[in-house]
């Protein structure tokens, strides 16, 4: 039986020093790309694991994915019909309007929560085993997309029920949806290092998200008068939400410049967030207990 041992020249060599990885930017970028590629299989496994386990111990199963948007929509439709909460005219029947807004918002919020959630979930082996960390982020986003896809079925049902016709721009909608998730992911990744150290982030994020939803034209059309219109101009989620909704409903884009600018900023900051995540992880691991 022949035994082949690799010689030293063929073996990959890695050097660890206290230096900041930013001092060797080319090496950093190379290892980022390498880890991203290497993490695909693991990300898929973690995704399958989480999705399989999510509702296994429930009776209703995947129905649970539908229920939150259903309840939110019903609540606002009721409030609006009773004139307790008046929003004015919307281009499409109000229930459909609220449903789209809620689904898109949920995509954003889920994406924002996913990095910290995935890290906290994996704490037990994060500090003990070396694996490509991008897998956690990818698996998290996979879950967000999966949940969104399930809820999309609701949207189809509502649109069918109200016989709402969709314009051709609906084919742009995936771009809008992904943009909202990317924005959420960007905030999530930037906050994750701080969130691992200080639990304030974990506790505060739901509060902020809740309030933020009301400051975004999710369940009401965008206000035109000043100062309320600041909600659309200063809130980065607004242009994305409004434009995506318009892609699905009217075909007229009112906030297109904002949409493009925010996407550009998102992609840049997301990349920076990725670098920050990598730089911070070794320091985070030594501070968390496992």
């Amino acid at each position, binding site marked *: 039986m022949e035994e082949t041992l690799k010689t030293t020249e063929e073996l990959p060599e890695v050097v660890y020093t206290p230096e900041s990885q930013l001092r060797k930017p080319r090496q950093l970028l190379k290892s980022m790309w390498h880890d991203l590629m290497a993490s695909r299989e693991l990300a898929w*496994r973690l995704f399958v694991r989480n999705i399989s386990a999510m509702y296994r111990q429930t009776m209703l199963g995947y129905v649970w994915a539908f229920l939150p948007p259903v309840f939110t929509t019903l609540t606002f439709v009721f409030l609006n019909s009773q004139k307790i909460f008046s929003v004015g005219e919307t281009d499409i029947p109000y229930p459909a309007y609220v449903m789209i807004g809620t689904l898109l918002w949920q995509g954003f919020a889920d994406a924002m929560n996913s990095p910290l959630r995935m890290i906290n979930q994996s704490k037990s082996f994060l500090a003990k085993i070396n694996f490509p960390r991008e897998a956690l982020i990818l698996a998290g986003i996979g879950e967000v997309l999966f949940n969104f896809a399930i809820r999309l079925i609701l949207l189809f049902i509502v649109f069918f029920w109200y016989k709402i016709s969709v314009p051709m721009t609906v084919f742009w909608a995936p771009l809008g949806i992904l943009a909202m998730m990317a924005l959420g992911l960007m905030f999530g990744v930037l906050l994750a290092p701080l969130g691992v150290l200080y639990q304030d982030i974990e506790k505060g994020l739901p509060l902020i998200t809740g309030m933020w939803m009301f400051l975004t034209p999710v369940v009401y059309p965008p206000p035109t008068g000043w100062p309320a219109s600041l909600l659309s101009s200063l809130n980065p989620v607004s242009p994305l939400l409004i434009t995506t909704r318009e892609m699905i409903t009217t075909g007229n884009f009112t906030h297109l410049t904002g949409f493009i600018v925010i996407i550009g900023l998102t992609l840049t900051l997301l990349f920076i967030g990725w670098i920050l995540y990598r730089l911070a992880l070794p320091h985070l691991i030594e501070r968390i207990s496992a």
Partner: protein
Amino acid sequence: MNKNNEVLVKVENVSKKFCRDLKKSLLYGLTDIAGEITGRNNHNRDLRPKEFWALKDISFELKRGEVLGLIGRNGAGKTTLLKVLNNLIKPDSGRVTMRGRVGALIALGAGFNPILTGRENVYVNGAVLGLTKKEIDVKFDEIVDFAELWEFIDTPVQSYSSGMQVRLGFAVASNMEPEIFLIDEILAVGDRAFRLRCFNHISKLVNSTATVLVSHSMFNISQVCNRVIVFDGGNQVFDGDVQKGISLYNTATEYETEKLIYTSKGLSLNKFEILDKEITWDGELKFILDFNSDNNIDNTFVRFIVTQIDGNVIAEWRSSYHDIYCSVKKGSNLFEIIIKNIRLRNDKYKVNLILTKGSGSEYLITAHQSAEFSVKDSLFTSSDYVI
């Protein structure tokens, strides 16, 4: 081309500090991250308030085929060094060079979700360890065989016992084929059959890898390792021969107490002393047992149990084996016993003494770890006894 001379692990002056205080630690975490972002050099920093060196100036090289044991008291820095070698935390000074893939047997069952079945978790755990789906498909049957979990592989892991979970975790992890192996005391759990299989497996891999093993069991270390580094408070105090390192560790962890004396009702021990504290090959040990009794007790015998410094029993002399039975008188008693032809290797030993009644089931006096003696100029050096 001499393949066995390749240096796979090179550690140069590595130091690592930790912080005792939680809030300060988190703050230092922030400052460290900031330092990383601003691209600072970060070498040779001093200790900030409440920090201490978990590792200081560790240096060594490891070649293929070497199995290095890291021993030391709890908190001496062994697992920290493993984490640095595994690229989980950054050194605060020095550098580490690793050639080849690194595999870590440190946490078994990483990634397990208890609600999923064993089968599903095998794939998750494999993926976390870097094994591809194809590799696992091919080895799946072997994995379940090794873990002996055929009947339960499709049951949720939450209903496995901890031993079963460890078996499954190890079965998956044993399929890693790295150049450098890092192992941390996971073999402490599991039944004896399982532990033997783990050792067999590790022994097979030893020639083609450079292995670093952290363990508290000197038995495991002496079985598997061919080199030992002793840690004390973050410092590297010894690097070399396994038996010498183990002796050093044993003397460092010796403590004065733990002389447990138990006497049954009506008896009290005055003195148990070995008269010749140092003997040579084939020498004799003389000891005295001075005690008081309220009653006459017939048919007693003495058990003289020799242990290593850490309490591990290695030999016993029983007076009943030599047909010597003693009668205990009411009042004070003094037994003087000489054991001849002692053949042990050079080392320090402790003694457990038991005075027991005829059938052997009723202990009258027990003196645990209560005396010491040492052997010099012995004729054998490696094994504890010769047949």
